[in-house]
């Protein structure tokens, strides 16, 4: 269940961003992804989730194990929270949304249409989806945006629980979640520009 990344290089829009990425994400562990804006944290998470192909290198142990959560929650505004979560439950072939509702204190909101929720409530429903997928590796892109302090604690507890049961998580975030986690700083992996004289290189 270990996710192993070797010599990974990634690109966005045909422009190489990061290279020589090497790390291991073991079961029960979390990694906090750090780096300045625009360096390619989102691109890295999308590549690991299989949404785009890497430029070079290998990703092992990711196949069908990753639950991805980004800025958009994937909630349908005209469906209720319970309907939204049940849909993802059927898609991922799991059996219950109740633990997810309990964990994020969504029981009272379960029958409300997602379009009527506040931004923070939507975010909680979006994070609850992670529990519904039943996948062991979480790839989270700024998960705490628009959450209040109470909800952030709720989220941190959910991650801790997930780790306790052998899951793992790679989290791009700028706030301190109070988790025991190593930091993966990718600032030094930024691609050095190739010389301009290299004509083919200037295509990439």
């Amino acid at each position, binding site marked *: 269940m270990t996710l192993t990344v070797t010599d990974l290089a990634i690109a966005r829009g045909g*422009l190489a961003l990061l290279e020589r990425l090497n790390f291991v994400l073991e079961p029960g562990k979390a990694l906090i992804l750090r780096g300045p804006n625009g360096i390619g944290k989102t691109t890295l998470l999308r590549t690991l989730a299989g949404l785009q192909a890497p430029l070079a290198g290998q990703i092992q142990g990711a196949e069908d194990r990753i639950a991805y959560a980004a800025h958009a929650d994937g909630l349908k505004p005209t469906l209720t929270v319970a309907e939204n979560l049940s849909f993802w439950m059927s898609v991922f072939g799991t059996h219950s949304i109740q633990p997810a509702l309990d964990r994020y204190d969504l029981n009272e909101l379960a029958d409300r249409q997602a379009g009527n929720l506040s931004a923070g409530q939507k975010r909680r429903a979006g994070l609850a989806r992670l529990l519904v997928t039943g996948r062991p590796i979480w790839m989270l892109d700024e998960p705490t945006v628009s959450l209040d302090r109470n909800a952030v604690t709720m989220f941190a507890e959910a991650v801790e629980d997930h780790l306790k049961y052998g899951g793992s998580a790679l989290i791009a975030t700028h706030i301190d979640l109070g988790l025991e986690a190593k930091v993966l700083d990718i600032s030094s992996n930024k691609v050095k520009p190739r010389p301009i004289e290299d*004509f083919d290189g200037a295509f990439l």
Partner: protein
Amino acid sequence: MTITAKANSLWEYANPRKFLATSERLLPFFWLASTTCLVVGLVWGFFFTPDDYKQGSTVKIIYLHVPSALMAINCWLMMLAASLIWLVRRHHVSALAARAAAPVGIVFTLVALVTGAIWGQPMWGSWWAWDPRLTSFLILFLFYLGYVALWEAIEDPDTAADLTSVLCLVGSVFAILSRYAVNFWNQGLHQGASVMRVAAVTGSDTEEKVSNIYFFPLMLCIVGFVLLFIALVLYRTCTEIRARRIKALLARERANA
């Protein structure tokens, strides 16, 4: 993935620098040859061939109509080949050549349609008839428009190349389907493709065929159009390569800022 480049492998020209250097050396030749063929062919065709006994002097529009119609289709075929090469081998030059060819194809299609209309007016008594051949070219014109519009709409060059290539592939299948559908839908007034059959037949016997007197200048015009097409596409591809390089350099500058 390593491409073992033999000394004279065709794929060498997929290197933008090599492509630019070679095309710049070849371009003057193509310009000169196409101009010569077209001037000689058109002057010969327009002024030194007799009028047709049935169609009068209107028949002479054949020297523009047939070559441009031929090239309108061949241009799409070239784009299809270039798209396939891009999808399989990921050579940027290939995708850019397909992009560069499309507007040339549009112009050839338009010339074929307009000269067809001008020819049709005295022959069929109307500027436009929903004849299957004319209609097919109209549909081809729409495919070209969609293809170019898609290139223009997408910012990321690799995504644009991928999407337009798939569109070109799917479009080709539907273009062929449309051709047969249109044939089925209306049997048509247009005379059959009569140029190529004549190559095998010496002397002219039936009136449906293009006789020798018209054939040689027409052949010259066709060769001229082919050369013109090659010259235009090479020229435009070079421009696209440079534009792409500028874009890449600008993006790099932004990334380093």
